[in-house]
């Protein structure tokens, strides 16, 4: 094969007008992400944890009469109601502020950070920086959307099985409740995913960004909220933290005070929506600035 045959007349020349270039990058990122075992491991962990904490533990508590850390003090009737189809909207979001958020943060950090570790961003950025980055963020948004939809389907399927086993009538939640819950889960996940992506971009390393992100979500915010109960100034600050916003948003949907880890009622629902959205915007803009301004080494 000679070099001249490389100059194929079709399909070789990129679209000069640059149309649909972001869509191409979304396609490219989805193409490579869908084959990534780390992504499936992260999503699988979420589905497993959502099932275990949303249905397995409450159902075991119901059937055995024992109480777990999240079901203590709840009557058998409440426990059973919590695993039936009418409670799918609550179960869908209850894990998102804590372990769900941490998992998508890990996913976002891996998507961005591993590209630097492997040198793949260097290869891709040779033909432009912003478009592939936006493509990766949008691909992440698609994956998160699929994650929420699959979770809703999974919750519905499990709750129907349990209702059948327990000979309970199939009472469905309203579509509005389900949509509101799915939207909340999506917002919370997107906040943590974009923060993870921004951390991965900033650190240019998956390991460092995952470590920093997890320490923040699982340790620092909880510590600050603990300190905040004694120091009003710290308490004021914690009201603006991402974990507080996510927990408050979920709390506004499910009704605060259920004892679910990560779910709080520190700020109002509307303010939580604004705060979560602001974090998404800040994370995306920060990522864009870092990608555009920094040298690619």
């Amino acid at each position, binding site marked *: *094969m*000679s*070099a*001249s*045959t*490389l*100059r*194929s007349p*079709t*399909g*070789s*020349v*990129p*679209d*000069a007008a*640059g149309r*649909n*270039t972001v869509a*191409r*990058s979304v*396609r*490219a*990122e989805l*193409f*490579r992400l869908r*084959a*990534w*075992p*780390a992504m499936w491991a992260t999503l699988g962990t979420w589905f497993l944890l959502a099932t275990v904490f949303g249905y397995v533990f409450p159902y075991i508590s119901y059937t055995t009469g024992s109480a777990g850390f999240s079901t203590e003090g709840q009557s058998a009737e409440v426990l059973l109601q919590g695993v039936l189809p009418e409670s799918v909207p609550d179960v869908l979001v209850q894990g998102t502020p804590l372990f769900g958020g941490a998992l998508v943060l890990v996913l976002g950090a891996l998507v961005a950070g591993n590209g630097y570790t*492997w*040198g*793949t*961003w*260097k*290869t*891709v*950025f*040779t*033909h*432009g*920086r*912003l*478009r*592939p980055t936006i*493509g990766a963020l949008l691909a992440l948004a698609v994956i998160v959307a699929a994650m929420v939809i699959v979770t809703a389907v999974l919750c519905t399927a499990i709750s129907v099985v349990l209702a059948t086993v327990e000979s309970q009538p199939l009472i469905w939640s309203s579509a509005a409740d389900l949509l509101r819950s799915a939207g909340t889960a999506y917002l919370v996940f997107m906040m943590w995913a974009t923060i993870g992506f921004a951390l991965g971009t900033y650190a240019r390393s998956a390991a460092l960004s995952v470590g920093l992100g997890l320490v923040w979500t699982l340790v620092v915010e909880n510590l600050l909220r603990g300190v905040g109960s004694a120091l009003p100034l710290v308490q004021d600050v914690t009201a603006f933290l991402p974990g507080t916003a996510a927990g408050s948003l979920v709390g506004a949907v499910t009704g605060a005070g259920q004892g679910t880890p990560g779910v709080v009622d520190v700020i109002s629902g509307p303010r939580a929506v604004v705060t979560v959205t602001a974090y998404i915007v800040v994370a995306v803009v920060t990522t864009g600035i870092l990608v*555009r*301004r920094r*040298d*690619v*080494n």
Partner: protein
Amino acid sequence: MTDNTTLTTATDRPGRAGSADIDADVVVETSALTKRYGDRAAVDSVDMTVRRGEIYGFLGPNGAGKTTTLRMILGLIRPTSGSVRVLGRPAGSRESSSCTGALIEGPGFFPYLSGRANLRTLARHRGLSDRCVEEVLARVGLVDRGNDAYKSYSLGMKQRLGVAAALLGDPDLIVLDEPTNGLDPSGMADMRALIVDLARAGHTVILSSHLLGEVQEICDRVGVIANGRLVRESTVSTLLGDAILKVRGTPQDRVVSIASDLAGENGFEIDGDAVLLDLPPERAPDVVRALVAADVAVSSIGPTERTLEDVFFEMTTTSTPMKGV
């Protein structure tokens, strides 16, 4: 809004934005290109010109500034000052980057994907068809191993996949940084043939390599960089200069004495059992006459050429910037 706006600002020069006044034969042109890290200049006022269709060898010791220069040409690093224009456009602009392919400082691919899937990912980013992927895989001889995971590739295979990625989209300019790293002798020969073939097909190739014999063999022109400064840019033949005379005879001290008389004190060099005289081959009869007159037993005399390696070491130890043809 296009990517690298700030880079465009840094590299664009007034009065040169349009394409009409661009020399169509110049593919890469840097002007006073400088990159500083703190007080240290990694690249210092480099004026470099790469012409269409040539294989340009870019040489320099480790840490001389080769890769930094190449990254600035690709728009991956923003210059501190100076400018880079690629195909008449600022480096890193969409127009220039869409016509450029590169393998820079080792290949960067997703380890969990196959070689083919890696290239398809890159092709999708750029809106290229899967057919292009098959073409470049064939070009580097990886069709049969295309479905193997990248992480299972040998160093040489990874390098070839990196070259395949650089060829995607049939770019006008191909930048190859040490493309023969990890290749066996046969792979190196194939790579050399590929590069020559690419140039024949109208591509412009910038080849950075430590294998000076390889560069001497296939490059049309070379640029030599040392301590961040371009110390020489010329054709290979100009750089090597004229042939000189190589003499073997005994006693050697008498050969040295004659060499000093004929070529001057600085015009000769002892090379093992031979003496190199900085004289043109047509002076051989004069040299033989003088040696015989001095009762030297001449065992051989003939023209010899300096290698690029000789010239490279001379230039990189005395780095005075100069520009040739």
